[in-house]
Structure formats: C-alpha cells, structure tokens
C-alpha cells in the first residue's frame, strides 16, 4: 500500500503553496488598494492553513484572529477613510536604486534556495517533537502558554511595553487636537 498520508500531505502542501503564490502576486499587483487588502486576507487565511497542516494550531488561530481579523480590517478602514483611488503600477520608469535592490534580492533568494536544496532533503519527521507527545503533555496551546510564561517572561513583559508604546504613538500621531496649538 502506498504511503497515503504522505501523498496527501504533499498534495495539500503543493495546492496551498500554489494558491499562496498566486494570491501573493495578486496582492502585490492589484491596482486598487481594497482589492489588495481582500487578497491579503485570503493569503493570510491560506497561510493559516499551512500552519494548521504543520500542527501549529495556536499559531494558525492567532494568524486568523490578529492578522486576517484585525490588521487587515485596519488597512481596509484606512483605505476607505482616505478614499484612495486605484493607482498605477510604477511603470517602466527606471530607478537605479530600486532596480539594483530588486536584482540583489532575487539573486539572494536564488542563493538561499540553492543552499537549502543542495543538501539532502531532511524530512520534517526527523527529530521533530512527536505530535502525540505534545497531545499527552496537554496540547499545543498549553505547551506554548507554559513556555511563554516561564522561559519567555522578559519578551512577554516587553511585549506589553511595546503595545503601550504603540497605543500612545498611534493616538499622538493620528488624533487631531480639537484646538490647534497657537505658536
């Protein structure tokens, strides 16, 4: 009997990867910002599916909750608030700095791909934490919670300071004072 589940996970991955690539292209090239935002939602949702296929249930959930459900809503709100119209793609205008950056980045990507493909492909199963072991220890979410609140205390507390700063900064920058300061 052929390895059915391996075949299936390969199929799922390739399907998702193809869709993600397609939708990412659409995000980048869509003329209208609202279209880009909607494609971005789909993209993030598909990435959440990839995380789910990697048994990272918690990450998949917060990906949808925070990214798709909150960050892109903010983008949509701002686009609608400013009433942005479709813009042109930057045509054939030559900009040396950007062109060089793009070429360098593409070359870098090819090098990264070459390096990662040169070695013998390592299966995901190699030395990976057994899914059943995680289940027995209380599940993915519980393990992450314990690790976050014991090993990662300082990042956790710093995250709150980061959020505090973001709240203050956003309000200071975006809020128009009722009375402009007279200089």
């Amino acid at each position, binding site marked *: 009997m052929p390895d059915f*589940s391996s075949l299936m996970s390969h199929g799922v991955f390739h399907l998702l990867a193809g869709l993600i690539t397609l939708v990412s292209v659409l995000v980048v090239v869509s003329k209208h910002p*609202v*279209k880009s935002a*909607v494609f971005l*939602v789909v993209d993030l949702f598909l990435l959440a599916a990839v995380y789910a296929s990697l048994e990272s*249930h*918690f990450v*998949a*959930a*917060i990906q*949808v*909750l925070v990214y*798709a*459900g*909150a960050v892109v*809503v903010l983008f*949509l*709100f701002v686009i*609608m608030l400013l009433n942005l119209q479709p813009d042109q793609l930057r045509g054939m205008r030559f900009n040396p700095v950007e062109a060089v950056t793009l070429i360098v980045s593409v070359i870098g990507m090819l090098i990264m791909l070459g390096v990662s493909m040169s070695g013998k492909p390592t299966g995901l199963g190699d030395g990976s934490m057994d899914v*059943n072991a995680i289940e027995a220890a209380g*599940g*993915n*979410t519980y393990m992450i919670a314990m690790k976050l609140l014991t090993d990662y205390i300082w990042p956790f507390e710093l995250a709150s300071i980061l959020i505090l700063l973001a709240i203050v900064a956003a309000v200071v920058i975006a809020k128009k004072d009722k009375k402009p300061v007279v200089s």
Partner: protein
Amino acid sequence: MGLTADEFTIQFISTVVKFSILAVMLLQVPPVMLLVERRIPAFMQRRKGPNRVGLFKFRLYGVMQALADTIKLIFKEEVVPEGAQKVFYHLAPVFSVFPAFLIAMAIPYGPDIQVLGQTIPLSVVRLDVGFLFIFAISSLAVYGVTIAGWASNNKYALLGSLRASAQMISYEIPLGMSLIPIVLIYGSLDLNKIVEAQTTFLKWGIFLSPISFLLFLIAMFAETNRTPFDLSEAEGELVAGFHTEYNSTKFAAFFLGEYVSMFVLSCLASTVFFGGWQVPFFDVRALDQLVGLPGVGALVGFGSLLMKAAFFMWLYVWVRWTIPRFRYDQLMNLGWKYMIPLGLINVVATALVLAAVWFK
C-alpha cells in the same frame, strides 16, 4: 495517522453525517425566526400578526408565511446600483455567510456517543484551540459588512457599514475578555470539556462567573447588530444600513448570515453559561443504560441545548421590542469605557479568588 482504514471510514462518514444534519438544521433557523419575529411582537402588542397564509384550508397560525416570504425574496428582481464595485458587490454576501457556518461546527451538541466501538464526539470540529477558533472565525464576519457597504456606492450603505464594523470590532474585545474567567475556572479552552465540567446546576458558568455572563450577553447583542445596538441599520438615519442596495437572494444571504450567527452565539452562550447539553439534576449519559437504547442520552442532551438556545433566540426578539436603540456615542462609550474595564476587573478578580483558593 494512527487510524486503520476502517476506523478512518467510520470517522469520515460520521463527520459527513453530522455535518449534513447540522447544515440542514442551521438552514431552518432563518425561516423559523422569520415567523417568530412577527408572531411574538404581535403577541406582545396584542395584535394578531401574520396568521392567514396557509396551504389550502389549513392556516396553521401562519406557518406558511415563512415559505411565502422566502419565495417572494427569491423571485425579486436584482438591481445592482450604478457605480458599484461589481466584483466586491457580488462577493460580500459570501463573506457574510460562511463565518457563521464555520463557528457552528465547533459547538458540542451532545455527549460523545459510541458507534461500532468508536467514540464519536457530537461536535463536528474539535480543536485544541477551542475558543480561539471561534473568535478567529467570528472576527472574519466584519469583512462581509465592510465590503458590502463600500462596494454599494451609496453613502448610507457606507456609513452603515463603517458604523457596524466599528461596533463589531469594539465589542469583540469584551466578548473575548468575558470568556477568560471561564477558561480560568474550568481550566480548558475546549468547549466539550467545559460542558463536561458543568455537571451540576451550581457549576454552571452563570453562577460561577455572573459578570462574565452579563458582558457576554451584551457583547452578543452588539456583535450581531441587534436592537438595542442596531445602529448600523437605524432606519430613521441610514435607510437600511450596509445592505441598503442589496435585494433578492443577496439580501437573503445577509439575512441568513445574521440569523445563523445569532443562533450560533445563542448556542455558545448556552454551552458556556448554562451547561450546554447537560440537564440539571441528572446525568444525560446515564440515560442510555436506563432506557436501554443507545443514543437516547445524546438526543436528550441535544434537545436540552436546543431549548436553551431557543430561550436566547426568544430573548433577542423580546429585547428588540422592549428596549429602545442606543445612540452611537453611548454605544461606543458602553463598549470602551465600561465593558472593557469591567472585563479586566472581572479577569483579575476571578484570578485572585481562584489563586487564593487553589494555591493557598
């Protein structure tokens, strides 16, 4: 996968069966509510309400009114407003329908049953992340509203959709916070475990964490844009809100999404605060042996959950005809200045009490 082919087949078929039953059930919610939303207010206001539509000579208290309305809705002409964003205009109903159906999958509708030696849970999806799955999917419901309003090229629709989406995201936070004490108390994100922990009357969520229930109830009304929070379709100001330019079956799609999500939130409230499929004073799962027929317990549990959910649906209608609408600034003040602090205090207080009791 750790399952033999036979086990996999049983699991798969049972999932398909559960899913089909649930989908058919959810599709019955809007027609039923269509009638209920007219008969109950009529009863409250001492009117008769629609009672004449029937089949041949059988009027049956106007039961066929729902069918008549549905048929009327289906055969309406579709009018796409000029200048609408065509693609998004047609896409918005899809965005408003699917989140409600997805969330419904995560609710446990009864105790586990045994089929051919295998344990079948009576919820379609059982995930490790439980609540977070529900919040994640329900946060996607905003897009239907936002896109519908924006794509219609109508200022009332746009205003209504911005109001509605701002309201929905504002009340998502109290909704999320209200359930943190529940997780603290029952120690699980899994809805089924929470239900199983509520064995007796006194262990119901509403008694262990009444403030959570209050917050959840208010947030539940606001999330579904129902009176007293139906600012998005304040008909005196905004015609009909974000679906002003929608008609025919597209309007039916919004209608379906709204009522299904109301029903799902009712089920969630019953599950978390009213013991879900548990029946007070006796164990449903013992019924199987008592009657000698497997599945009776599950059926009774399912009935129990449905009755609790029906109570909340009735509450929706009752409140709609009793309480006047909030003003928008009052709505936002309530959400941000009262419910969030109250939610935080609730979390802290619950944690301190539990820590004092458990950790000494």
